[in-house]
């Protein structure tokens, strides 16, 4: 059951000040409305993972680790590998995160990242099949949020993409009956697309890219759009208790598409 969260403690006064600033096209941290925060990527920092990447987007830190092994395929896709995305909002990341099973925020995060990867066909799942119907590669993408300063979705998509780009699959020999044995060596996981998401927050009538935590706490709604390498839309998710006009959405598809293209180029530079 989804329940209205209790209101953030930010006074309506604070909100008024932010809205005034936004009226002048300014943001609390000095960015322009369509300016994203700088990001850094560090890859291969977890030796026990088959791939890993830590992204710092402003002060938001997300670590993604990839575990790859083998298992049975789903009955309805017997010739495809399995890709699973999971997110944990561990309590070191924010005074508001708690221990315990994932709540709707973590589940939505994981599912939006999952769709961004899956719908853009980031990996060819059919190439991850070992023995049809019996044995396939199973890849876990585990999102670990280490510091929450806003816009976890975009940081997580970046980290997941980076980690997958650096993932090395263990090699296996497989028998017809589905018996699988590890053999030495690894092969690179082939990435065939680079999905990048851009999340836009809405406060009053202003639209702002890559909202920070301060902005998230007062924003009315957000819209995430994930674009593939060709500039097509692969996933969208509106969140929050506010609304968008159709014009806002149509305009955003163009501006956000361009912005993700810049981000993609920057990422290529960072982890080539």
């Amino acid at each position: 059951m989804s329940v209205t969260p209790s209101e953030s403690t930010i006074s309506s006064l604070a909100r008024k000040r932010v809205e005034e600033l936004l009226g002048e096209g300014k943001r609390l941290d000095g960015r322009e409305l369509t300016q994203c925060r700088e990001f850094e990527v560090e890859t291969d920092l977890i030796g026990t993972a088959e791939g890993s990447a830590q992204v710092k987007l402003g002060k938001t830190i997300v670590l993604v680790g990839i575990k790859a092994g083998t298992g049975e395929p789903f009955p309805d896709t017997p010739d495809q590998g399995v890709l699973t995305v999971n997110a944990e909002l561990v309590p070191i990341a924010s005074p508001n995160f708690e221990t315990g099973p994932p709540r709707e925020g973590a589940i939505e995060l994981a599912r939006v990242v999952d769709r961004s990867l899956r719908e853009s066909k980031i990996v060819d799942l059919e190439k991850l099949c070992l023995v049809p119907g019996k044995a396939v590669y199973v890849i876990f993408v585990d999102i670990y949020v280490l510091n929450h300063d806003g816009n976890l979705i975009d940081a997580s998509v970046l980290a997941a993409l980076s980690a997958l780009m650096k993932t090395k699959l263990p090699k296996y020999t497989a028998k017809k009956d589905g018996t699988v044995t590890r053999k030495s060596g690894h092969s690179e996981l082939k990435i065939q697309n680079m999905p990048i998401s851009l999340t836009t927050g809405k406060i009053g009538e202003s639209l702002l890219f890559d909202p920070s935590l301060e902005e998230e706490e007062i924003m009315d709604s957000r819209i995430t759009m994930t674009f593939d390498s060709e500039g097509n839309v692969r996933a969208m998710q509106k969140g929050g208790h506010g609304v968008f006009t159709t014009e806002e959405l149509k305009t955003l598809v163009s501006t956000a598409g361009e912005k993700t293209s810049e981000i993609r180029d920057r990422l290529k530079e960072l982890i080539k």
Partner: protein
Amino acid sequence: MSKKNEVSFFDGKGLRNDGRRLDELRPIELEVGVLDNASGSALIRQGGNRILVGVFGPREIHPKHLALPNRATLRCRYHMAPFSVEDRKHPAPSRRETEISKVIREALEPVVFTEYYPRTTIDVYIEVLEANGGTRCSGITAASLALADAGVPMRDLVVACASGKVGGKIVLDLNDFEDKYGEADMPVAILPHLDRVLLLQMDGNLTPKEFHEALDLAIEGSKRIYEMQKKALRDSYPIPDEPQEEEVVEVEK
């Protein structure tokens, strides 16, 4: 959404696998006030979807720490019956149901005058009894009627409809087959007379131009459903002192 090469979506006449045109809705039946114990309720049948919504409240909230000082809490559960899908669904809530409950709640939040009922809760229970694609949209359409039936004041009715892309074409109101094998599915919920988007999700593959087209189509389809919603409410609450329209019939309650 996995595209299979062998799949064909249209017949020789360009009609969809269930005989519809590209911009045609599935047949929709709406019934208001179908449950006795709920404050308000509605049943929607849309193609192969059969969804029952019950609303309780505004009422006292338990546990009390969920009470909000200046507004009603909205609680929303989207839940599938075990027999509503091809392979029996385990009764425990899935991650998918958790996410859909959230986006539906967020679609309803801007519409309900929650500020009239501080410290109470309004509970919206959406029970999917049979599912055949687009259940979150059907559920929202029915939830809005159930809220109206419960007498909960709203800015407008909420109405939802998906559009998407199958076989290279933008289509309205995808059924389960089109959702599974088509190229894109995009559920949209709107406040119809204010033209505001309350819910938007998409997965698949759309060019920006196709997105524009699909959005317009989803809104256009939603508005058609909106007319049916209004009729269902009129039918359910005939106003005796005004000259009644011909089509008003007593709804089974």
